[in-house]
């Protein structure tokens, strides 16, 4: 392998109350694909933010092409050829796709005037989108894109740099297999042209498939490095969490009960001429698979009362209901864990404890006055049972790592009495250990009679966790699979609208 052109030496970084990184050393050689794994809050994003010049280390040095420096700046990182896809999206939803891809380095025309060359931007964006298989155009406004589509825009942005190193911080967390496969192919192409890639993902399969070398972080320290054939699912997990994991699927204790939620001829505004029919039973986990933009989130939003139901019927235990507001859904015990936690799930600059109590404040209050001690006590309980990594529950939700934020969203609902929970991408950005905990939680909930609808783009998760799988294609349910017929191939066929064998 070639000599490293980039080195991070003995990097430490702490935030008030947490040590995010402690003495981490990392080198990157040209044309190398490095997988970076670790539990939520292990410090992966922090390390990358230091490399990208967004955060400065407290201690340690960076060496680029032999030149040492104490800290990177965003400018310097750009000049050094580092392209960065942030874990949390950083798009401008008042601009179109091409403008976002080229933000900060727009092609110009009429040199002295520094006018935008919109044509060039769009022309140069189009092939990138094509490569990624995006279903939108360079001129599409970002405001109209779903989370997954936005993630593709971020990736396109990184690819548009003539970078020597591309950092991908959980690029696939909202992507389905098809897009992911395309991305892995792109990574291989980059590697072939001598570009290095740092790839962060909680989907270890992906890491296994693309990485030449895997670095494992735990609690801010580098705890291991795997190369070549050592890169194995189990080996990574063992290093990450210090123990082995059981298999994903936990069978239900009892056969599913009565119908809890039924949708018949349900119409949504995203696909006005398609209808959805679906039944979720008490005590089961129904997986809902499909491609990006197939309309799964839209169904969840309608059932939860966010969007207007434009037709059809929703039945709860056989009884037709109208849900006009999330509050009504919540009152009936229907909860939604939204896919975009930053926008819909959390108040980022509010404490964990207050986030958790928000949907059910009345029960922490006496005569409408809130008892903060009760809130904190409940939050502490949730913190322990979900294993949320934080010094205390007064910390702002926005300061948590992505996975821990997701657990806070879950904690909101688990503090209440659920009857039906819709999980929209429940483990987006959640580490394997925590994933397992969430799956166990879901199973425990379903065993207690809760009906669970799990929308997921993670094939491993859909197949590994569900009792049944419904697949959506362009706004309607294209098929239903029982456990015996679960396979990646069957799910994919239904997802693209082809019949099963």
């Amino acid at each position, binding site marked *: 392998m070639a000599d490293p052109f980039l080195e991070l030496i003995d990097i430490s970084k702490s*935030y*008030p*109350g*947490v040590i995010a990184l402690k003495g981490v050393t990392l080198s990157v050689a040209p044309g190398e694909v490095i997988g970076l794994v670790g539990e939520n809050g292990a410090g992966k994003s922090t390390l990358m933010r230091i490399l990208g010049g967004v955060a400065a280390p407290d201690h340690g040095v960076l060496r680029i092409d032999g030149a040492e420096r104490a800290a990177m700046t965003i400018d310097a990182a750009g000049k050094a050829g580092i392209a960065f896809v942030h874990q949390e999206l950083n798009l401008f939803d008042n601009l179109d796709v091409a403008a976002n891809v080229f933000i900060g380095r727009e092609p110009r025309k009429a040199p002295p005037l520094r006018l935008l060359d919109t044509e060039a931007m769009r022309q140069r964006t189009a092939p990138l989108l094509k490569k990624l298989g995006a279903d939108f155009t360079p001129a599409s406004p970002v405001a109209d894109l779903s989370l997954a589509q936005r993630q593709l825009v971020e990736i396109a942005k990184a690819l548009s740099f003539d970078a020597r190193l591309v950092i991908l911080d959980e690029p696939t967390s909202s992507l389905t297999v098809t897009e992911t496969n395309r991305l892995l192919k792109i990574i291989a192409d980059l590697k072939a042209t001598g570009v290095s890639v740092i790839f962060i993902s909680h989907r270890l399969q992906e890491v296994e498939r693309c990485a030449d070398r895997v670095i494992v972080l735990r609690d801010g320290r580098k705890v291991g490095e795997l190369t070549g054939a050592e890169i194995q699912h189990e080996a990574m997990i063992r290093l990450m969490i210090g123990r082995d994991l059981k298999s994903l699927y936990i069978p239900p204790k009892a056969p599913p009960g009565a119908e809890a939620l039924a949708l018949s001829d349900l119409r949504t505004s995203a696909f006005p001429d398609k209808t959805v029919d679906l039944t979720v039973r008490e005590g089961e986990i129904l997986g809902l698979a499909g491609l990006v933009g197939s309309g799964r989130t839209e169904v969840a939003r309608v059932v*939860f009362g*966010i969007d207007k139901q434009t037709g059809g019927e929703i039945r709860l235990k056989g009884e037709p209901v109208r849900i006009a*507001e*999330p*509050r009504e*859904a*919540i*009152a009936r015990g229907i909860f*939604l864990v*939204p896919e975009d936690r930053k*926008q*819909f*799930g*959390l*108040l*980022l*600059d*509010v*404490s964990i404890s*207050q986030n958790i109590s*928000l*949907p059910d*404040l*009345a029960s922490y*209050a006496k005569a*409408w*006055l*809130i008892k*903060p001690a009760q809130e904190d006590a409940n939050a502490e309980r949730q913190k322990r049972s979900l294993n949320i990594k934080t*010094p*205390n529950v*007064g*910390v*702002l939700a*926005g*300061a948590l790592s992505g996975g821990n934020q997701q657990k806070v969203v879950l904690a*909101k609902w688990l503090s209440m009495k659920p009857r039906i929970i819709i999980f929209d991408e429940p483990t987006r950005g959640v580490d394997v250990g925590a994933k397992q905990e969430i799956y166990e939680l879901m199973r425990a909930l379903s065993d207690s009679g809760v009906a669970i609808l799990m929308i997921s783009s993670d094939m491993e998760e859909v197949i590994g966790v569900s009792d049944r799988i419904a697949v959506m294609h362009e706004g309607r349910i294209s098929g239903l699979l029982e456990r015996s017929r679960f396979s990646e191939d069957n799910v994919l066929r239904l997802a693209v609208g082809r019949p099963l064998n």
Partner: protein
Amino acid sequence: MLKKDLGLLILILVVSATVAFINPRFLLPINLSNTMNLIGLYGIFSIGVGLVIITGGIELSVGSMFALLGVIFVDLLSTYEINWALASLIIVIAGLILGALHGFLVTRMGLQPFIVTLCGLLIYRGIARFYTEDATAGFPFGVTYPALQWLTTGRTLGIPHSFVAFIIIAVVMGIVLHRSVFGRYLFAVGKNEEAARYSGIRTKRVISSAYIICGGLAGLAALFLTLYTRSISPATHGNFYELYAIAAAVLGGCSLRGGEGSMLGIVLGTILLQVLQNLVNLLGIPSSLNFAVIGAVILFGVLADQQIARYGGITQFFRRKTVPQAMPEKQG
């Protein structure tokens, strides 16, 4: 107490001490009592405007409401000779209705709060001026309303009742804002309306309520102001008062982006503005410089606060986002 509130308190104390040192008459009970009266008058509606700002909205029409509600109030009392208690009730209810109208236009019709309340600013004053044909409305000479006057402009042990009303309202609204479920919803809606809706909060209702409370407090303030001036020139009565209210709220730590602010801050902001007015008059500063002095003190106060916070010791602690208990909701 938040860092911002502490900074503001220090600024108020420094300004007051300076004034008292230069002109000890500042500390005369009558002067303090007069200043308290004005703090009460301006504070009552600043609290309402502050609540709206916390939800991420804005309220520009209070000054015009004072003109409109004021001329109606004078008319009810002196032309129609309605019982003062009933007339007062009508005015407060009218304020609530205007607030509800704003809330309706903002939440149900989806208009920008700035547009809605700017139109309110223009329309209410226009109606008030048209209604009186631009003439000053005032109580006839010699007519008195002893009970009403005692309630609004009276003083007990030198404490003006407007100030008492203000303090009571501030304490009640402080508890509502910082301790109650509704208050928590106000902050949540101001921080992220969508996320609040996903948590089952009836965001439209919460936002409307803020405008309604603001309207009601504006109605109440209109009563106090009318009895303070005893006459209302509809073209000028209450001009710029919305700026005073917004300035008090923003000085007190409310962010115009919503989701931030504290009742204590709003109270302190109001106090600072009134002490500054008093200062200009007491120190014999040319009144042409009045605004300049107020502006300069605010600017330097905020700047000093910022600089201390940036490089300073204690306050550093409060600025870190991750520090537990740094949440405004939790503090008094």
